[in-house]
């Protein structure tokens, strides 16, 4: 219901607020573990930190997910999968880049097949710096993202839609071909 | 009003006319046979109409029976004679295809075969029956070896051996009867059969039964059948199944019903019939050669007819006669078709005939023939089989009928195998079109089979007279 279902009762502004509230309280996450960092997720999910108290649960498919968590370095080959997964998610959708590598390449800064900045290819809403970031950092990121969503600042999906051509150009520079 | 003797005299006349015609036209001889058989069939048809009114007795040479020779034509005899001549006519059309020389002698023998078979059916005199049996047999021996190859000679040789032993048995039986009764007229014998010494009577019956059983392809006297059928030219195989066999089984019926009115011996005939069916069908299943398969199948069918005769109720004998007609038509059709298939495939083996019957002109008659032999409605074979079965049931022969049905399933199995192969797809290039001499007789026979199958009333009207036949009448 991206359009207001009952415009006569709920003002449009209120409706947007409701929508944001719902998105924030029910973030379904798909985590894309590229190579490292996945080990930090179990504590987040299990009894130590228990992300489910915020309504965040892991999902098996991007169709159901709102939040893409990219953990670790992104090889050019991986990037294509990430982009595909991202495009299969449904708006509104959010991305968290986890670790140093998606931010600036990290220790792979001079590698020939690792991309340096994930943000060039898909819009990232939240970064977690560190190599590796601790689960506390992840929880913090989740909370910050929730706050951003509430304030309407986490709008990477709108950016992606708006600057789709540029993102796509950046991607195609890496991929050469899309369908393999 | 025609005299039955014409049916015997005319083929004889044409048979001896054919060498004369053969002097200036070989082709003319072939057409002469067609003409002769057609004429004969027409006469037989007229005779049938007459015999339906009342039995026709034709006294030859003016001697009154029981001294003279008499032809005794009841409706049943007439219809069998009619069918024999009709089939002979159809086969004679197919004879146009026979290329083996000398055609003149072939034609002579063929007409003699027709004449002998017709005579066996029409005659009312036991010794005359023997004479016609001999004429038929000798013509058959000649025709069986006509291909002049090893198969033909061997087949003919076996036929000669078994056939002559059979004839001897017939002669023995005649001698026994004559020694006791001093007469050979069938009706006369029937009237005085009670005065015979029972042991001699059994012996006479056995001798005659076995003697005609050879022609009627009864187990275990049918050993000549596969070889002779296989070795003979195709039209002759067709003729064997339809002419002498039917005449033989009719003679058997005469022996059983007209002369010896047994009642306590009949179950034995049923058992013999069942054994014949059983061995015929089972061995047919094992055959890989088309003509041999058909020959064994023919044995099976004859066994069914013998069973029908042995059951001896009106219904069963009616069925047996219906089956004689159906089998004469159907088996002739199948042998003609087999001739074509062998010609087309250049081999006698069934497996080589893949797709050879895909031309409808050959395929549809072939199917009709096969289905009729299997006893499927609405073809001629259905009523015969059904009546025989029901007659059997009405006499309480449950076990025998059950065994018979089991054998019938075997029959269906091998016919289905054959049909599957000849209609198989994938050999289109080799399929050849039959010529008129092949498909015209096929279609004639097929149409008759369908007509008397769909509307059996005419035949059944004739066969109503079975009651009098069983009671010892003409």
């Amino acid at each position: 219901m991206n359009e207001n279902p009952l415009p006569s009762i709920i003002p449009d502004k209120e409706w947007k607020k409701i929508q944001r509230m719902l998105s924030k309280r029910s973030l379904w996450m798909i985590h894309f573990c590229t190579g490292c960092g996945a080990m930090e997720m179990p504590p987040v999910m299990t009894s130590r930190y228990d992300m489910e108290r915020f309504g965040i649960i892991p999902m098996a498919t991007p169709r159901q997910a709102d939040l893409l968590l990219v953990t670790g370095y992104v090889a050019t080959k991986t990037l294509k999968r990430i982009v595909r997964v991202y495009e299969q998610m449904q708006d509104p959708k959010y991305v968290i880049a986890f670790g140093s590598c998606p931010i600036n390449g990290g220790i792979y800064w001079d590698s020939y097949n690792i991309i340096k900045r994930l943000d060039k290819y898909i819009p990232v809403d939240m970064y977690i710096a560190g190599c590796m970031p601790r689960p506390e950092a992840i929880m913090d990121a989740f909370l910050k993202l929730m706050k951003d969503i509430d304030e309407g600042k986490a709008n990477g999906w709108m950016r992606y839609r708006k600057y789709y051509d540029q993102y796509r150009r950046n991607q195609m520079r890496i991929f050469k071909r899309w369908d393999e | 009003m025609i005299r039955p003797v014409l049916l015997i005299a005319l083929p004889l006349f044409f048979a001896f006319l054919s060498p004369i015609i053969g002097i200036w036209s070989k082709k003319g001889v072939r057409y002469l046979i067609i003409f002769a058989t057609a004429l004969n069939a027409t006469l037989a048809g007229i005779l049938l109409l007459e015999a339906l009114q009342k039995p026709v007795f034709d006294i030859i040479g003016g001697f009154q029976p029981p001294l003279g020779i008499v032809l005794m034509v009841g409706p049943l005899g007439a219809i069998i004679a009619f069918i024999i001549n009709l089939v002979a006519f159809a086969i004679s059309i197919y004879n146009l295809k026979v290329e083996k020389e000398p055609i003149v002698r072939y034609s002579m023998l063929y007409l003699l075969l027709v004449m002998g078979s017709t005579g066996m059916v029409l005659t009312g005199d036991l010794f005359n029956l023997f004479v016609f049996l001999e004429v038929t047999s000798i013509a058959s021996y000649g025709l069986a070896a006509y291909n002049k190859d090893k198969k033909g000679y061997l087949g003919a040789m076996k036929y000669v051996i078994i056939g002559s032993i059979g004839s001897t048995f017939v002669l023995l039986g005649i001698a026994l009867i004559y020694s006791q009764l001093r007469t050979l007229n069938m009706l006369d014998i029937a009237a005085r059969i009670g005065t015979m010494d029972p042991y001699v009577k059994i012996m006479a019956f056995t001798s005659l039964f076995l003697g005609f059983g050879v022609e009627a392809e009864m187990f275990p006297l049918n050993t000549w059948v596969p070889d002779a059928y296989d070795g003979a030219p195709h039209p002759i195989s067709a003729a064997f199944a339809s002419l002498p066999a039917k005449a033989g089984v009719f003679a058997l019926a005469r022996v059983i019903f007209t002369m010896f009115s047994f009642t306590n011996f009949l179950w034995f005939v049923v058992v013999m019939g069942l054994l014949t069916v059983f061995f015929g069908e089972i061995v047919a299943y094992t055959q890989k050669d088309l003509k041999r398969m058909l020959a064994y199948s023919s044995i099976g069918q004859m066994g069914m007819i013998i069973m029908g005769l042995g059951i001896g109720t009106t219904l069963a004998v009616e069925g047996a006669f219906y089956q004689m007609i159906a089998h004469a038509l159907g088996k002739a059709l199948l042998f003609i078709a087999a001739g074509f298939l062998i010609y087309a495939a250049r081999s006698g083996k069934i497996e080589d005939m893949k797709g050879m019957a895909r031309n409808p002109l050959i395929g549809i008659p072939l199917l009709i023939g096969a289905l009729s032999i299997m006893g499927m409605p609405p073809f001629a074979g259905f009523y015969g089989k059904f009546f025989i079965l029901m007659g059997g049931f009405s006499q309480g022969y449950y076990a025998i009928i059950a065994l018979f049905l089991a054998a019938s399933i075997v029959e269906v199995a091998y016919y289905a195998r054959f049909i599957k192969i000849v209609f198989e797809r994938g050999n289109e290039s080799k399929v050849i079109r039959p010529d008129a001499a092949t498909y015209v007789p096929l279609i004639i026979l097929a149409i008759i089979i369908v007509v008397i199958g769909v509307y059996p009333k005419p035949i059944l009207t004739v066969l109503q007279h079975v009651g009098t036949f069983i009671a010892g009448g003409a």
Partner: protein
Amino acid sequence: MDALTLFGIFVLLPLVGALVSYFGKKYAPIIAVIFTGISGIFLYLWYGNFGSYTIDIGVKLNLTFDITTWFFMLMMNTVIFSSLLFSVSSKLKRAGGFATLMLLGFAGANGVLLARDFLSLYLFWELMSWSIYLLVLRTSGEYARRYLLFGVLSAYLLIMGIGIIYYYTGSFLYADALSGAIPHAIWPWILTFLILGFGIKMAIVPFHVWAPYAYSSEQPFVAFLSGGLSKLGAFGIFMSMYSIAGISLLQSFGTFRGVSLMGYPFALLGAATAFIGTILAIFQDDIRKLLAYSSIGQLGYVMIGLGLGTPLAIGGAMFHAFNHAFFKSLLFLGAGAVIYRTGKYKISEMGGLGYRMPFTFMFVLFAIFALAGIPLTSGFISKWMLYEAAISRKFVIVAPLMLIASVGAYLYSYRILYGVFLGQLKDEDKNVKEAPGPMLAAMFILMVPLVIFSIVPGWILGWINKILVENGIGKLNYTTFSYSSAIGGANMAVFWIAFILLLIFAMLMFMAKKARVVDQYDNYLAGEAPPSVALHAAHNYYKPLRDTWAPLLKHSIDRAYEKFSKFFAGGFYEIKRIYTGNPQDYAAYLGIAFLAFLLVGWWLLW
């Protein structure tokens, strides 16, 4: 109406049609459609115009046109009409022969339905049998023989039954069988022979092995075979049990909770058939074989109903036969349309055709609803009747087998739906078009009754009730929209209203927002690029289940038959050796025979 008109319209007209359409070349199916259409119109006009007649073609054929006959003819006629309509556009090879044989089979079927004496029954039965044989021969020559052998076996079993009756009564009329001439102890034999004979045509286990192969022939024919002709088995069993023998005679053999001991074993056989047919159907990959086994299973239900023999059970059996006629021929036609368009018949090789052939998909979907017994079609009601019949009499072996077989039906139904119509469309099928008009029309005709009789079951239950009352079985409890048994009931009007209202509600919730349509390759596969891999997961679909069943599936009735036939064929070759080919042996046979005859003769005399 006199005898000749009746016989002419229902038997001779198809026969004439058979003759005419042979020469119709490619228009043959159209000609055949017209001929069946004519007899269909008369069937409609003559409802209620019932009576008995005799035709004399040398033998007397006793024909009766009554409600039972009419009911079965209705299925037969509709099914063959739509099958032929379907074949108009299916570009068969040698269409003339096809139409001819179909009409011959139709004439035979009509004859069987009209016949009220054993001679005409057997005559038409065999006519139908061989015309089907030739139709099977047209495509699956390898297995036509198997069909024919079983067809002939069925005919011969019938002959045994008929013969025993004839021995005692001396008459072929159905009506004379009950005259009291037949001793009471003989009846079980007669009924067993007749029921097994008819049961073969219904493909009752263990006589079902012909069906999967025969059903792999041309689809319009198979639709008629499975939908139409297999009902003759049901008709025959019904006639022999409840018309020839009659319910009171059946009850006199002792009853087991109100069900005749003569019928109960056949109900068990039916339950076994339903179960085995269903289990085997689940594992088939060839769509034709799947439908064939499903057909076996479904006819098992009919057998159960006929065996139990309470009014509800027989009513259910009749209704189920009716439903099966329609949905199974619809399924076969649907499969035919798919095979016609794609040329494939393996489920695992198809996929996604529902998007290209939406109407075919819808029709097949309805057929599957009926098959699985979803209440949206009349398929539910017949199953309901059978269940209630078994449960209300507390049959604890029949009922669970029936119920679990019905769950198994979901499994193979979904296999058809998913494997053929859903999933991913293959690249080579990208350009597949919807089935041609006549095919769709044929399928539509078959679909309509399934839906109509689900909304208004009272109409068809009225006919069935009449059949039951006329044969003195009892009557059903029904009104126009509802039906009930001793232990329950249902009202279809309420069901439909509730269903439609709730569906509209769901639709309102659903329609509030538009959805974007994406390509089938835009599919989540862990980010992989889909076209590079085969993604239709239909191959060996129920593999886990198959693995668990493997120890049982090892035993096959098919193979048992093959062993049996091999054993006999081997014996035949042994017997053949008496024809040694040596004339001396032959002469010896003659001598032995002479001696044997003579001795037997003298012994008899003595």
